[in-house]
């Protein structure tokens, strides 16, 4: 009886682990889910994308890089003391947890947009993860007045269409 139930318990744990991690053999991309993704609409210059990243795996997963056809480059940024800067070592999504990308916090910075991103447009972003796997997601562009933090990239550039208000708010 005891032996049976122990066997059942072991089996149950194994099943649970498999379910939680999407299979321990799954790559990082299959373990991450992005929800509530959106980007700030902009006519020109810089802009940013946001959302919530959930990690179903039983190990931390790091987003090491990002790119998008809608931007000449996408950087992983944080905001410290109202100044944003590139994050060293990428964004780490904790095992079984989530990470919020939001205005005033961690975000995906579009360093230059070749074409305007209008409200309602959908932009596709590709994330590169710690194991080298890649994950695509789409973000809908929203008319948004915030996310105007100064950029400590050496040039004090400003974001998108709200450039005029950026200095005032910084």
């Amino acid at each position, binding site marked *: 009886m005891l032996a049976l139930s122990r066997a059942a318990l072991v089996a149950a744990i194994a099943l649970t682990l498999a379910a939680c991690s999407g299979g321990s053999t799954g790559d990082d991309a299959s373990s991450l889910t992005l929800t509530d993704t959106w980007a700030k609409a902009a006519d020109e210059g810089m802009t940013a994308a*946001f959302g919530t990243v959930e990690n179903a795996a039983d190990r931390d997963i790091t987003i090491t890089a990002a790119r998008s056809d809608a931007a000449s480059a996408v950087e992983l940024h944080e905001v410290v003391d109202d100044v944003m800067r590139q994050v060293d070592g990428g964004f780490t999504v904790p095992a079984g947890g989530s990470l919020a990308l939001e205005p005033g916090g961690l975000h995906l910075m579009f360093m230059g947009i070749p074409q305007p991103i209008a409200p309602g447009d959908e932009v596709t972003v590709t994330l590169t993860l710690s194991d080298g796997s890649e994950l695509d997601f789409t973000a*809908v562009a*929203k008319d948004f007045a915030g996310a105007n933090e100064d950029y400590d990239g050496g040039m004090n550039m400003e974001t998108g269409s709200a450039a005029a208000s950026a200095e005032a708010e910084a």
Partner: protein
Amino acid sequence: MTPADNAPSRRRFLAAGAAAGAGALVGTAAGVGAERAGAIPGAPDRPDDAGVNGQRVVPFYGPHQAAVTARPGAFASFVALDLLRGIGRDRLAAWMRLITDDAARLTQGRAALADVEPELAATPAGLTVTVGFGRGFVERARGERPAWLQPLPPFSIDKLEDRWSGGDVLFIVSSDEPSTVAHALRMLLKDSRAFASVRWRQDGFRRAYGSDPSGRTMRNLFGQVDGSANLRPGTPDFDAAVLAGDDAPAWLRGGTSFVLRRIAMDLDGWDEVDRVGRENAVGRRLDTGAPLTGGRERDPVDLDAKGPGGLPVISSVAHARRARVEDPSLRIVRLAYNYEEPAPAASEALSSTGLLFGAWQADVDRQYVPIQRALDEADLLNVWTTPIGSAVFAIPPGCREGGYLGESSLGV
């Protein structure tokens, strides 16, 4: 509850009934308000620790837009927008996706994407968001236009003002909580300003939630019980009268139409009318809303009944007679809200008061226009009421999760 507790409360209840009866007899309910307050069971100021109604959620997804069949919220904002130049069919779809996403989240008590006041989304209180399309939208979308989607024909009683009329797109935002209406509308308008500009906005109110038992017919600011004869959602008669069927363009089926008339009410003139005159103007009792021919509020008005002198009990020009439609499928379903705003600066009136008279119907020309024509020809209420705004919209059907409002006219 112990018998000892019970006895006094029953006595209080009886006293309340007597006070209410007395109020009805003298016809000045407000005048006895002070005496009634302490006599009504449950009236003492008890804290509401639950705030249950704030969490009330009306499902968003479904075959019809939710407000068509939902209990109307205590507050509503009606907003018409005009499309900006250069907004083509693709952009209309992008706009409607944004609006649908906002509505799907906010009505369920969740913040919209990019919502900078997410706490204001947490109290939906029955929030509904409804989207309507004016003629301009359907033309821009290159959709098939229902023949009735145009301004109503002119009526002799009309004194329409542009500032309350027309529009390419309509939003109706309704909730029992006014700050929820304000927040939801602001989100919708932020997500609209790249596509359209606000043409007019009309705000209205009914009885606040909790002031009346649920389901009681509202009163307008003439003091009349307003909307007694409305068909009930969920009945075959309601569906036949309201839902667009096979004779409508394919994209509209399962949807409906909405007419909004802004009707100014001359309260100063109405002040001169005594109670008998007021009841005769409509053909209903002021206290209960019942027909003057007897019965209860929702009983049919007996248009054939004769009084002692052989004259009809319901005047030949009473509103209830003139607005009567025998065939249920030709009726309209009213969605009325009171409005009251400051009088214009130069006016001697005490206020600008009236009714936002909304009506759902499957076909405006078949249902709304004949009624309006009959009232235009003769209706005692016309003495004190003046239509000053008018707009007609097609209300597309609801959508499924993953879809968006208007997809049937904009998709593919």
